[in-house]
């Protein structure tokens, strides 16, 4: 299936979830926060399977004022 991750198209094997997504990008869950379709998704739900067309945002802290 094709989803959007941080604004980019991304092809994820069917049944893939946030865990898979983070793993694929070598991101440790406790260093990022994740939005699914503009709503926060907590670590406990990272195993919810993603659906075609889902929009995922994976964010972290950067320098700011």
């Amino acid at each position, binding site marked *: 299936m094709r989803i959007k991750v941080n604004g980019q198209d991304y092809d994820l094997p069917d049944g893939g979830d946030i865990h898979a997504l983070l793993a694929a990008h070598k991101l440790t*869950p406790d*260093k990022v926060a994740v939005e699914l379709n503009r709503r926060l998704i907590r670590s406990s739900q990272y195993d919810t399977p993603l659906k075609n067309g889902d929009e995922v945002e994976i*964010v*972290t*802290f950067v320098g700011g004022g």
Partner: protein
Amino acid sequence: MSVMQNLRIAKFDIRSRLFVGTGKYASYEIMQQALEASGCQVVTVAVRRERLVDKQGRSLLEFLDLSKYIILPNTAGCFSAEDAIRVAILGRELLEKQKNPGANWVKLEVLGDKKTLLPDPIGSLEATKQLVKEGFTVLCYTSDDPISARRIKEAGAASVMPAGSPIGSGQGVLNPLNISLCLETLKENDPNYPVIVDAGVGTASDVAVAMELGADGVLLNTGVAHAKDPVKMAIAMHHAIEAGYLAYQAGRIAKKRYATASSPFDGIISHIPGE
């Protein structure tokens, strides 16, 4: 020698009245030294997308000692209440994962214009109401308009942060009367309500001026990060906070049109004109 009282904002009891941003330093190492030199306890950070490709692999969090600093996430770059709320929620989630005491607070920015980065009074008000409802401790960036500031407080903000001048412009406090009227309005019958002057600081005297008006603290970033010597400027800002804080407490002399001698005329051996 410091004789500053801690600054209380909601559940936070803060040692240093200087809040420093983590953006725009030449390197994380210089940022670390500048934060250290500034003596600050609260540092602001932004929430952004993980770089999924081409990342240097170094992340801000590796350079912030969370046993030492309280992280205050901002909603910089948001131009609507809705986006600001999304970013605030993501920031809170990130903080909780770091077990950082700041977890439920946010420096709220809802911007009205990309050129001036001045806040949108309407969007800021909506976002403040919503975030307060969701249990956030909201520190809200506002213009120096006392009425907008008061409405943000009435909406439940734990602190109001009026701008001295546009973010990063280095113009200091352009309208001391307005900042002073903000303080007067926000502290009326509530003297301990915390007011932080945010944005516009270019150099140390700007910080002193803001504190001498009665502000409880100052938040800055570019003034230190882009100074030729950020670490030295950070020390300067540290002294400026104390200087302004103490001068305000000490009660300055009134301005006079004419001179008043500091040495007595009595007992003088010289000839005084017209005497």
